[in-house]
């Protein structure tokens, strides 16, 4: 996929004249495919449930289409070299998420979430267009590293002053909309980590003391480690106070990955694992609700054996199992039995039951492709900040998908978190569109430098 070959392979040749293909046509075609798939899913739900096309099919398709085309125009005008896969995958996952939420709304007529989700998706695409159009160069962000971290901490702290919802203090409610500021904080923290590590990576990589003589394990010095550890501890502390373990796990993973990429020191992995073990033991001791999550994971059917009926995880496993290989078909499953959080944390169970292993694998592979495009942009870039930023943003998706998808399928203990693009949750959708926008910018920079004039 990399177009490195053209200018480098032929040093003797005359000045490179071949223009790097921009692939905006490919992007447009893929967006149309994504739109068709989404509208098809919407119609399939209606036909399965009532035998007729749903009344809003045309409007839904047109709305999503206009959003996608505006986003495409923004990319075509302001980031013409951008990776052509990022935007279509975002549109497809967002469209599919709307279909799944609309489908689940049919089971809960008194509580409709799809219209709100569509509004949030519009806001998300709006932010996408603003970022793509306004951010001329991603390196500008490097200057605002400390602004970002202050902002991130402020956002993380904010919900403490609002009432808890379902036992977790991660939402704030303004004018009927509930916002989860922690979602936005992810991006800001990724920017800060990337900027800080890019600036200090030499110090981090080449100083420190060797722990074991015959291995390459080398611990960093306290002076460089200090500030970053402090920020990490602070954010994790806030999250434990707010009882949002999924996000805290995500920050920790992001931190370790970026440290490793920046310094290449296996010592960081050792430090990370040590911290993880310490954190896990401490949290497991202090937090009874984490302990119960682990118990649920080890014995998902314990409540059934105790005669209390299946818990959410058991119902989720039943839903996936009911899907089998090909699924029941959209609109024909019974994932609503899961009860609370079917549209948010457990949205994947609906996909698993109604689209089957085939559909679920396709969704996982779409996320995989999204992450791969992010990493690819990171590999193609030259500046350390851009590389770390791309890797960090892509890793947010990878970790988030793993934590929540692994949780609802019984691979790891369940921690509440939103499936990117699919799950109900406005802040999450907006944040994910912001991530796509940043990666579009980064990949534009990465590929433009090979287009003859910029480099060499």
């Amino acid at each position: 996929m990399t177009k490195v070959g053209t200018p480098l392979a032929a040093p003797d040749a005359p000045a490179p004249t071949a223009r790097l293909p921009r692939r905006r046509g490919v992007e447009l075609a893929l967006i149309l495919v994504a739109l068709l798939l989404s509208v098809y899913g919407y119609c399939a739900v209606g036909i399965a449930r009532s035998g007729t096309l749903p009344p809003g099919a045309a409007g839904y398709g047109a709305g999503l289409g206009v959003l996608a085309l505006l986003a495409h125009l923004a990319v075509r005008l302001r980031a013409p070299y951008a990776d052509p896969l990022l935007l279509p995958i975002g549109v497809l996952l967002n469209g599919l998420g709307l279909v799944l939420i609309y489908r689940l709304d049919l089971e809960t007529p008194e509580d409709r979430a799809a219209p709100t989700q569509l509004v949030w998706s519009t806001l998300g695409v709006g932010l996408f267009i603003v970022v793509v159009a306004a951010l001329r160069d991603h390196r500008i962000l490097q200057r605002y590293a400390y602004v970002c971290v202050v902002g991130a901490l402020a956002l993380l702290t904010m919900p403490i002053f609002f009432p808890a919802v379902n036992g977790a203090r991660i939402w704030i409610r303004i004018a009927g909309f509930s916002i989860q500021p922690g979602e936005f904080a992810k991006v800001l923290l990724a920017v800060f980590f990337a900027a800080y590590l890019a600036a200090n990576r030499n110090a981090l990589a080449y100083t420190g003391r060797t722990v074991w003589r015959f291995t390459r394990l080398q611990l960093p010095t306290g002076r460089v480690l200090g500030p970053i550890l402090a920020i990490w501890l602070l954010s994790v502390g806030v999250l434990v106070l707010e009882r949002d373990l999924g996000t805290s796990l995500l920050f920790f993973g992001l931190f370790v990955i970026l440290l490793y990429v920046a310094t290449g020191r296996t010592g960081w992995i050792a430090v990370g694992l040590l911290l993880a073990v310490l954190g896990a033991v401490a949290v497991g001791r202090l937090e009874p609700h984490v302990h119960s999550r682990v118990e649920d994971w080890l014995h998902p059917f314990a409540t059934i054996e105790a005669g209390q009926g299946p818990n959410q995880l058991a119902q989720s496993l039943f839903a996936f199992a009911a899907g089998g290989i090909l699924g029941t078909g959209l609109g024909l499953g019974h994932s609503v039995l899961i009860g609370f959080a079917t549209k948010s944390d457990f949205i994947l169970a609906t996909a698993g039951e109604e689209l089957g292993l085939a559909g679920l694998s396709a969704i996982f592979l779409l996320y995989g492709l999204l992450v791969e495009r992010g990493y690819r942009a990171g590999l193609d870039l030259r500046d350390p900040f851009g590389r770390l930023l791309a890797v960090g943003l892509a890793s947010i998706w990878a970790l988030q998908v793993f934590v929540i998808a692994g949780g609802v399928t019984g691979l790891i203990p369940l921690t509440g978190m939103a499936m990117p693009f699919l799950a109900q949750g406005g802040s999450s959708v907006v944040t994910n569109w912001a991530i796509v926008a940043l990666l579009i910018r980064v990949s534009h920079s990465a590929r433009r430098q090979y287009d003859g004039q910029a480099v060499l």
Partner: protein
Amino acid sequence: MTRHIRHAAAFCALLLLALLANAARVQVVQAGSYNDNPANRRPDIARYRQPRGNILIGDRPVTGSRDTGGRLRHERTYPEGPLYAPVTGYSSQRYGTTLLEHTEDGVLSGTDPLLTPLPLFTDVTRARNPGGDVVTTLNQAAQQAAYQGLGGRKGAVAAIEPATGRILALVSAPSYDPSELSGNGPATARAWARLTGDPDKPMLNRAVRQTYPPGSTFKVVTAAAALDAGVVRDVDAPTGSPAPYTLPGTRTRLANEAEGCEDAPLRVAFQWSCNTVFAKLGVDVGVDDMVSTAQAFGFNDPDLRIPFSVARSTFDTSVDRAQLALSSIGQYNTRATPLQMAMVAAAVANGGQLRTPYLVERRLRANGATVSTAGSRPARQVMRPATAARLRQLMRDVVREGTGTNAAIRGATVGGKTGTAQHGLGNAGTPYAWFVSWAQSHTALQAEVAVAVVVEDASGNRGEITGGGMAAPIARAVMEAVLNS
């Protein structure tokens, strides 16, 4: 840095692989056990999503379905629940299924592979066939006559078409309304507690699941054995039996209710139900021949299915001569279901040939196409045709001028046998009134119906509880209903 980005990418790829492998584990490898978990409600939701097929008499359904709009959507209804409960059983969202609802569940719920025109296609689309219908052999008029005849008294009626084995009526009283058990709410639980706790046992299917001492009606079997074994060659010759009869090897003396039994010929003894004569005949025939005749009629068979299982009627195979004497007059360990005694009458009426009884005539797809029929049932020669002919005569005499005159029908030949079975410790319990019979209208070529009636009501005056007094009128009503339809 590039190398480390690749390492991190490889780590992400590992996470992806773990998710994919785990998804395959949950959705394919473990799917079977998750789907079968009793706490998983999906099978129930799918099962009650569509209306259940119906149980029919002819083309008239005796069951129905009600759309509740709830998660378990359709509930069973029984417009005439108590009348047909001993045939349909119940189909409950909470307590499962019984009787025909149970044995025909595959057809009724739509899961039977027979209903699938394109099996592979259906597997892929996961479509469920609409529930099929089950057509029974019942005769509506006979069923109603039997139910009204019992009039709520404890008892049971079974009626068979002798030439085919089709079951024409199957009634048990007191009965219950299976509609009460259809749902899964608290009302259903209350109804269940009430019905299962009722001392009258309304949910007991007395026609096929309860055995009674058959008393004198068993003398049909003893007479068949005596005639077949050659112990009696002439029904009008004296049998040389004393009255009272001292049970062999004991000092117990067996007496009769009727007069003139001493040395009575078989015809007289049968007509007036002489215990002494039949006790002696049983002993003269011997255990082996008595057992083989009784078993040919269907006694000691634990595997009879009509298609639901029928309780085993018993004739004890290891008895001494005194016990054999008592067994031969339907006492001691001899016990029979009403259906078994209807089979005895049917075998006599059908020239000694017994057709296995059955309830399901046809199974239909929802569109009315037949998917299976009962076909011809296995027949068994129970006794020689000559023996059957003589027994028919003996039974006819009982109705013409013996203990069973209450069963006579104008324009038809009716044969019968009364019975009054003692039971309980020292015969202290209220006796059961029995009547077994068959009827053939004068214009028909063969007997059209065989019936067994048992009434176990305690409310009657002890003297009136006789087969001829209480049970024969019910049998006549059922036979008339069949002959008239």
